């Protein structure tokens, strides 16, 4: 798990910039932890969000803990909103991604404000949140399918 989270963190801070649109890259870590939080129990998603968030916080110039807290909030919100939706629904990943991205970015902006950093809500909304909503929605699908396979394999091993 730690190796996967470290790999995703490295991809997000290095390789993904070549796929940026308007200076914005997909939130790969967010997408990954949301997928895991939906497929497994809430505490599994929470664990991944906290660990993945800590790794990103160590690589970030922002206040320490902001990423982990924002990821935790995003996973919780996505899970709570989709609790009655079938995990086989084709719209589930996209819907979860949109909600999680909104919660993540708004939480992060609030935490930046609380930590005393200047924040531009208009720039945050139009330059970051909206492009991220567009980028994360298609990004979640390949991650969702991959994590579903991992989930099914690990569930079978657990039961076996």
């Amino acid at each position, binding site marked *: 798990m730690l190796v996967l989270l470290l790999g995703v963190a490295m991809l997000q801070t290095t390789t993904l910039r070549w796929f940026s649109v308007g200076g914005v890259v997909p939130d790969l870590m967010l997408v990954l932890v949301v997928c895991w939080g939906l497929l497994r129990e809430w505490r599994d998603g929470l664990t991944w969000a906290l660990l993945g968030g800590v790794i990103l916080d160590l690589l970030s*110039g922002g206040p320490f803990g902001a990423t982990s807290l924002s990821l935790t909030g995003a996973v919780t919100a996505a899970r709570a909103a989709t609790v009655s939706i079938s995990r086989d629904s084709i719209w589930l990943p996209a819907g979860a991604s949109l909600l999680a991205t909104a919660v993540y970015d708004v939480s*992060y902006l609030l935490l930046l404000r609380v930590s005393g950093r200047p924040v531009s809500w208009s720039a945050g909304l139009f330059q*970051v949140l909206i492009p991220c909503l567009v980028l994360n929605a298609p990004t979640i699908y390949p991650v969702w399918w991959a994590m579903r396979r991992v989930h099914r394999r690990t569930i079978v091993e657990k039961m076996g």
Partner: protein
Amino acid sequence: MLRNRSIGLAAIVLVGVLVATLLHATGYFQPIENLVSTVLAPLQYSFHWISARIGVGVQTLRDLSSLQARVLELEGTIDRLMIENVRLREAEIELADLRQQLNFKRANPTYDLLAAEVIGRDPSNLLHYIVIDRGTQDGIVVGMPVVTARGLVGRVTSAYPQSARVILITDLSSSVNALIQSSRATGLIQGQGRQKLLMRYVEQGEQVEIGDIVLTSGLGGNFPKRLVIGQVAEVKSNNVDMFQEVWVESAVDFDRLEMVLVVLGFASTD
């Protein structure tokens, strides 16, 4: 009797050949030769045409295997040349970049500059930081300005043994004291999250034109003087406000940042 008939026949053929030879030598046999040639030539041509086609087909089959080998060889050569071409193109780009930096260093001999490669970006889209591959082991200290040959990039905010984090001037929490080169009007450049920067606190009466070069003023001691920040892209002013709002297009393309220069020996007063 049969034997006599055979001898007679042979004698007749022999005489006939001798006569034909004599006639051919004297030219009297020419009309017969022409007639025979006229009849036989088309037949000969047809046979030649068919055998030539068959011959080409047989030769093609023979050449096929050697042609396949030749195609594979040429494809391999093409692949190698393409890779070589890409490598040379990259070297050309790097050379142009290094020449620019060398020219910048020559134009600013008072600065002690250290080249560094950008190896990472901030994982958050809301923040604008880069990570470079130089750190405290190379003499990097927090507060050192970072530039490229085109202009100001930012400032070192964290330094580790083998890397350092740099806040870009486009980050919202970044501010740089600046001045307009032509009118010497001063102001404060603040990052707005994208390529454009906002220069605040430029007094209403100051002359600011689109295209004016914006430089660091050195006020506050955070950055050396006269480093290029960018060019004025838009000016918003009205009589009600005390200050003008000047939008500046950065000289540096932050989306394509690959190599930077750290200004060593500059002690920020922060």
